């Protein structure tokens, strides 16, 4: 089985995933990062013009910088049924970021077998139980189609300045992943980050986001984190066991000084 094919979109942050064995003929957009940097004041994708470079074995590397503020490198590695994005984010400013983040949009609106604007097939896990997203409280806010969710091991969404206005669901803390089952309930896609910072979902586009957290990032420091999107033919339970094993066996969050980049 060949790995998923990725193509970077010149000048913007998105790459397209096609030739996915579980989803023949369908495409998904991995729009990473839509925003990146200090969660108090991240840089939006319209400001940064990322460069895409193709490496061996279908690997893509995206780089971008905002002079005096930040630079990042994202290595996107296709697998047979997953795509892994490894971030290195460097703080070039003068102030310590209390929390670094990447706002990662996994766009499913172009995949007819998955798109789900009603959230009938969206799944999360709360308190050790799988739940349909529609069972989780939602806030009707100024942009009703969007919703933010707090995740385990991260600050509450309402305390994250960049995303605090995105209708944060109160009183519920979710595992740092979100999945959408296919119309025939045989397949699924999912996005998971380690460390995960928040979940976000937009019904207008049927996109799901698992924000990547980098923790505190001091001036000159480079922090690392990872997101994985899965495209699998599996039950939710089987995929969840696999994902936990993969992420548990291989700790993904680490940090290094900027000089070690």
């Amino acid at each position, binding site marked *: 089985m060949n790995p998923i094919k990725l193509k970077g979109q010149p000048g913007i942050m998105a790459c397209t995933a096609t030739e996915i064995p579980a989803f023949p003929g369908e495409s998904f957009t991995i729009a990473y990062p839509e925003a990146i940097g200090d969660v108090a004041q991240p840089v939006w994708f319209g400001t940064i013009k990322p460069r895409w470079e193709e490496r061996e074995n279908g690997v893509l590397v995206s780089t971008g910088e905002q002079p005096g503020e930040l630079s990042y490198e994202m290595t996107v590695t296709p697998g047979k049924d997953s795509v892994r994005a490894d971030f290195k984010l460097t703080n070039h400013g003068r102030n310590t970021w209390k929390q670094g983040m990447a706002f990662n949009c996994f766009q499913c609106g172009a995949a007819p077998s998955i798109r789900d604007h009603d959230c009938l097939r969206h799944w999360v896990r709360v308190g050790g139980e799988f739940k349909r997203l529609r069972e989780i409280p939602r806030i009707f806010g100024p942009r009703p189609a969007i919703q933010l969710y707090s995740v385990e091991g991260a600050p509450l969404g309402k305390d994250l300045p960049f995303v605090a206005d995105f209708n944060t669901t109160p009183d519920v803390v979710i595992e740092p992943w979100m999945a959408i089952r296919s119309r025939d309930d045989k397949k699924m896609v999912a996005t998971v980050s380690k460390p995960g910072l928040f979940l976000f979902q937009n*019904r207008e586009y049927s996109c799901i986001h698992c924000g990547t957290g980098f923790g505190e990032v001091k001036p000159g420091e480079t922090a690392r984190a990872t997101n994985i999107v899965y495209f699998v033919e599996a039950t939710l339970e089987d995929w969840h066991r696999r994902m936990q094993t993969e992420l548990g066996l291989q700790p993904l969050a680490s940090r290094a000084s900027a000089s070690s980049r």
Partner: protein
Amino acid sequence: MKTLTRRNWLMTTSVAGVGLLTAPRWLHAGVFPDDMVLIPSGSFQMGTDAEQAAKLAAQYHCHVSWLGGEVPSQPRNLAAFKMERYPVTNRQYARFCAATSAPSPGHWQGPKPPEHLLDHPVVYVSRADARAYAKWIGKRLPTEAEWEKAARGEDGRLYPWGNDFNPSACQWDNDPSQPPSGTAPVTAHPLGASPYGVQDMIGNVAEWCEDSPGKDAAFTKGGCWLTATALNLRAAARGMSGNDRNQLAYIGFRCVQEA
């Protein structure tokens, strides 16, 4: 095409397709649903009361907060107005583009709508695009309250046709074994008529309203061809309201004017 002015466009539409002088044939052949429906003045109950919301949430297995935007129900008293019987079609929007040089929706791939979509509702239009069209023909977009009254009348029904969902009364995502089939001609679902005779309000395309839940957002009403649950096809539902700059495959509009 460039010679079609607002004046001669109004002349042609006022006689329902007879005597068209300047527009190319594809602009005015076929269905020509420009007529307006009177919605009489008076009060109606807008939204959903808490008890009914709880019942609906239980019936559709969702947390009641997903209906939060439409709760509580409240009486609204509206002046009489007229609403277009059908959503604005590609054919109608093409006249606007031809007369004003407004950009055509992206999916046309040129100045002319695809032949098979002429009588489907126009999509890929932002709220600003919809407002510009409405202004051009001397109308405006409905408020959410006007839209909801036109859809459900004065007896509090859930759908234009009554309280029970009728899967044949609208264009929606009704077959899990098949991908959603896209928009339909605006006249395809006559069973969906509202108490006043307004058609195609549920499913097919969600419709821009004039008012907003917040900055940069707009109410959209009616669900669309992608909606897969009857819960979100009720006249009171407002959960898909979103960014008013979006030009999406499932949002269109219709116009109103004072009675």
